[in-house]
């Protein structure tokens, strides 16, 4: 190798080294926390280990200078880990970065000359608590707890409202039971009288039968036996009637199972008509009312909740008797209180109508009668839940509808419309 070639290689190496040396020097790096009013601290740029900063020392201040031309203040800088492109400033010698998240960063700065090698400063900011794996789940858990408590209190409130409503319904049921009791007592008394009378008759017939048998009068024995059989059949018939009344009362008192079963609506309606009427008669002996029934004979049994349907019928019938009773007290003597009960089989529906020629319902009140706790009766006489419950039972419980048609001081007619299938 000749000397000239060696010299050329040396010169080119020096030129290359000169070209790869940064023209800019980072002269200071300060760190602080702009959220807390604390002093900035200077980072030792000559330390050998990697610069690691605490999560709250995330406000950085870089100062730099052009070593070869200090008056030159045009620089390009970039913070890898944050900036995507180089940023150029024409009259600056310092740069600040705030709110840096945890992570690895390198600050690069160079002159605006093409091909200049940038000066660099690498550092790491430790992740703060926001970046800890448990922080976000914990925060979510807290928010969830917050929501759960609010929802729980809301549900508790609704539950309490439900309990209150149930208690009011129970009170309503007890009130209607009290009304029924008098009627039922009267209803039971009649068959019991029959049972007693026919029992006494049976005793007498037995004595006569014994006498006829002793005398050997076969003809009379046969006649007396026939009469005794008839008497016993009457006892059975009236005993069954009393039993049916008590069963009906128990059905009414029993909590609804919500289970639908095929029920003869005509029989159910007729039973409750008699019960309601007797109930009013028991309370007011002077009260009389004409009962007009027109029950469709071809009405097939329908799947209904019998207790609930009985409750609806009783409510509507009680209202009908109440209103004709009130009207009877105020109008001329030729007024005949009348309650009509009819059933009709329509194409797809079954309709039960309960009509009275009582006081009717004012137009203003008509819109409110199905609202819970609305009553026009004096305090203590009505809970205001009867029609509301009836409406719910028919519409929500049986998919039917309950409609009212009324003319003030003329009549009121309630129509229970149930789907036929």
């Amino acid at each position, binding site marked *: 190798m000749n000397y000239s070639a060696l010299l050329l290689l040396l010169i080119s190496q020096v030129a290359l080294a000169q070209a790869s040396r940064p023209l800019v020097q980072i002269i200071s790096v300060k760190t602080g926390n702009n*959220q*807390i009013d604390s002093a900035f601290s200077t980072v030792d740029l000559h330390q050998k280990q990697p610069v690691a900063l605490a*999560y*709250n020392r995330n406000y950085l201040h870089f100062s730099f200078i052009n070593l070869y031309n200090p008056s030159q203040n045009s620089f390009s800088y970039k913070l890898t880990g944050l900036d995507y492109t180089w940023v150029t400033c024409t009259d600056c010698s310092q740069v600040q970065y705030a709110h840096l998240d945890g992570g690895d960063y390198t600050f690069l700065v160079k002159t605006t000359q093409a091909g200049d090698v940038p000066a660099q400063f690498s550092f790491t900011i430790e992740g*703060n*608590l*926001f970046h800890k794996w448990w*922080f976000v789940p*914990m*925060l979510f858990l*807290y928010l969830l*707890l*917050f929501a759960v*408590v609010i929802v*729980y*209190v809301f549900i*508790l*409130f609704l*539950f*309490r409202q439900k*309990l*209150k409503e149930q*208690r009011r319904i129970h009170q309503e049921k007890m009130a209607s039971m009290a009304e029924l009791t008098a009627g039922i007592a009267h209803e039971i008394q009649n068959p019991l009288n029959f049972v007693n009378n026919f029992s006494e008759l049976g005793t007498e017939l037995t004595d006569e039968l014994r006498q006829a048998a002793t005398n050997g009068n076969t003809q009379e024995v046969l006649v007396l036996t026939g009469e005794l059989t008839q008497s016993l059949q009457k006892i059975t018939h009236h005993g069954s009637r009393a039993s049916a009344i008590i069963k009906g009362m128990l059905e009414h008192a029993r909590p609804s199972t919500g289970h639908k079963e095929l029920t003869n609506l005509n029989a159910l309606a007729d039973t409750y008509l008699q019960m309601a009427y007797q109930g009013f008669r028991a309370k007011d002996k002077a009260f009389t009312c004409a009962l007009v029934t027109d029950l469709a004979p071809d009405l097939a049994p329908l799947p209904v909740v019998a207790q609930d349907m009985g409750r609806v019928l009783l409510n509507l019938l009680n209202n009908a008797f109440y209103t004709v009773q009130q009207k009877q007290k105020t109008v001329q003597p030729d007024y005949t209180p009348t309650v009509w009960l009819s059933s009709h089989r329509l194409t797809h529906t079954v309709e039960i109508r309960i009509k009275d020629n009582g006081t009717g319902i004012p137009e203003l009140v008509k819109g409110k009668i199905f609202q819970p706790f609305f009553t026009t009766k004096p305090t203590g006489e009505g809970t205001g839940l009867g029609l509301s419950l009836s409406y719910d039972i028919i519409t929500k419980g049986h998919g039917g509808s309950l409609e009212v048609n009324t003319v003030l001081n003329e009549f009121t007619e309630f129509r229970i419309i149930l789907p036929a299938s």
Partner: protein
Amino acid sequence: MKLVDVAMYLVYLATYGVIVPVGFGFYLLQYLNKPLKILLAGLCLSLVLDLGLLAVNYKITNTFLYAFSGVDVLMMTWLYSSIITHKTLSNVIRWSGLFVIPLIGLDAFFISGLTNNGFSNAVEKFYIMSIALYYLTQLFQERIDEDIRRQSLFWVSTGIIIANLVGSFDIFSRTVINYSQTAYLQFFMFWSFVTILMFGAFSYAFWLSQYDR
């Protein structure tokens, strides 16, 4: 006026607002039932601690915060264990309340070293909120026929639940203050409103006691 000034003003107002229910309590002392007397005793103790803090010019605020937590737990445990009708649960509440006290001590001296009571405060508040919530459930189910708004202990429990639900956010306080002092101050303003609301509920509860007889 800076945010920090408004926040600090509200915090002081909320802290020393305890004087209002204490005043109502003493004025209506003859009408108070046992749980309300316990509440009044606890509030008096809180007031004494607040005044103590004032006397030492807030130099040992952090230490006082642990003491406040302790007083809070003791007061609420005593109060609720005396009114929860389920005997076993009442005993469980009493004993678990007593176990929270050593936990606060543990946090104070060994975990956080008397610097940040966020952890024990959150545990304490969660505990109090749970028992208040249980009592509210009991109240809602048992006193169906009474107007709940006329029940002193309904207002006491409601105030406690809201304040402790918000207060348990304290577990994140250190993180929040490091992230943003503004957010932290805003949280404390909200906390102050809620605390004032709680003392308002306590005062109303004391006021209602005269009609409870």
